[in-house]
């Protein structure tokens, strides 16, 4: 597992109960219980960790990222890291 993958999983996982932190790439954010408040905190943590800007407005009906894997891929693309 690459650094980015591990970091993203750690950031998402710390918002979840301990028994739900064993995340897989295919896990859907809505199904693992990420609500809008958790989402904005998670986005803040990702921005701080990777020194990036993630445009996100809580009023947009659909989340741009639906799974853990999609977040990992997006961060890798923005940062150019594996």
């Amino acid at each position, binding site marked *: 597992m690459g650094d980015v993958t591990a970091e993203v999983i750690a950031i998402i996982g710390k918002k979840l109960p301990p028994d739900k932190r064993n995340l897989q790439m295919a896990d859907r954010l809505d199904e693992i219980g990420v*609500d*809008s*408040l958790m989402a*904005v905190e998670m*986005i*803040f943590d990702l921005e701080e960790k990777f020194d990036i800007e993630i445009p*996100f*407005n*809580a*009023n*947009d*009906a659909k989340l741009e990222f639906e799974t853990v894997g999609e977040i990992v891929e997006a961060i890798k693309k923005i940062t150019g890291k594996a």
Partner: protein
Amino acid sequence: MPHRVVVTGWGVLSSIGHTAETYWSNLSRGVCGIAPAATIPTDQLTQKVVAEVKDYDPLKFFEEREASPMDRVAQFGVIAAREAIAHSGLTFDDGLSEQTATIIGCGVGGQSTQDENYKRLYRDNAKRLHPLTIPRLMVNAPASQISMSCGLRGPAFVVASACASATHAIGLAFQMVRGGQVPVAVTGGAEACIAFGTMKGWEALRVLAPDTCRPFSRDRKGLVIGEGAAVMVIESLDHAKNRSANILGEIAGFGMSADAGDLLSPDAGGMCRAIDGALKDGGLGASDIQYVNAHGTGTAANDETETEALKRAFGAHAKKLAISSNKSMIGHALGAAGALELVATLMSIREGLVPPTVNYLGPDPACDLDCVPNEARAMRVDAALSNSFAFGGLNAVLAVRRFA
């Protein structure tokens, strides 16, 4: 025997007018006060639009020595209170001063003072802060400054419940007058929270609209922060009649609830309980209401949830209600919002005109009630509600009616 409670004066300082009269004139014409911020730098803001009080010069209203101890928020409160008291024709002599309450809503206090002083300290390495930093920023300053400036010596305090502060404040003042604790209260709300640090905080919450405020509309993108103040003079009916006061309207009922659920997401059940509470408290049935001045922030979640709450509270009558959001024009003035909006609601009854929800692009199926899109509507309103629903799940609703 509870007293009937009537409104006999109002004053407004807003993004669309520095007096109650200009405020109403612009509200009724659908004038939008939202524009790029002019009082703070915007180069580091991703969301740059706000509803500021335009062309505000404290020295038009105060002597230098009067203005100095006050942050913008307390100045706004005092200006609106002076206008309201002048409008009411009251003078506080013969012991009335001691019997007049001052109950003002304010969400966050002197944000510009805090921001400027922390910037001096952390960025400019200043050795000392201005000696009036604390009295300027304290959240109770609007009530304190109004009581001092207007000579009101009865019960005085600020109510802080974020976006519902003013509605809670007016509700408490209403209960005090109704219960006979005081014959007169000066009540409303003041807010001036457009400071750089505060705006960065709002930006981080990801709920601000990048364009403008479009309550109940499709493609709405969030709320727009506003500022201002509105203050009313309220009296027991006996007191008002004894001095032959000009009665502008009646406050009939007040309902409150807490969601005890999500920190930020609204809850239709909590909203509905506050609406039901206001109707019941005012002895009003659902079909007595013609107009609801909505909380209507323009966020996806509020407007959809408020629509659901109105349907639950009003049943089939919900489809007959006119529902509009002043925030489409004046933004969300947080702790002042409920007062600005209650004055607008009372003016709607008086003038037979409901202000529109402007910036409306078209229907959202989740907000399928009549939100008076884009154009004001001439209609008779005998009774109306004003809704306020705060972050933290604190709900407050006032019911008002035509005085007869």
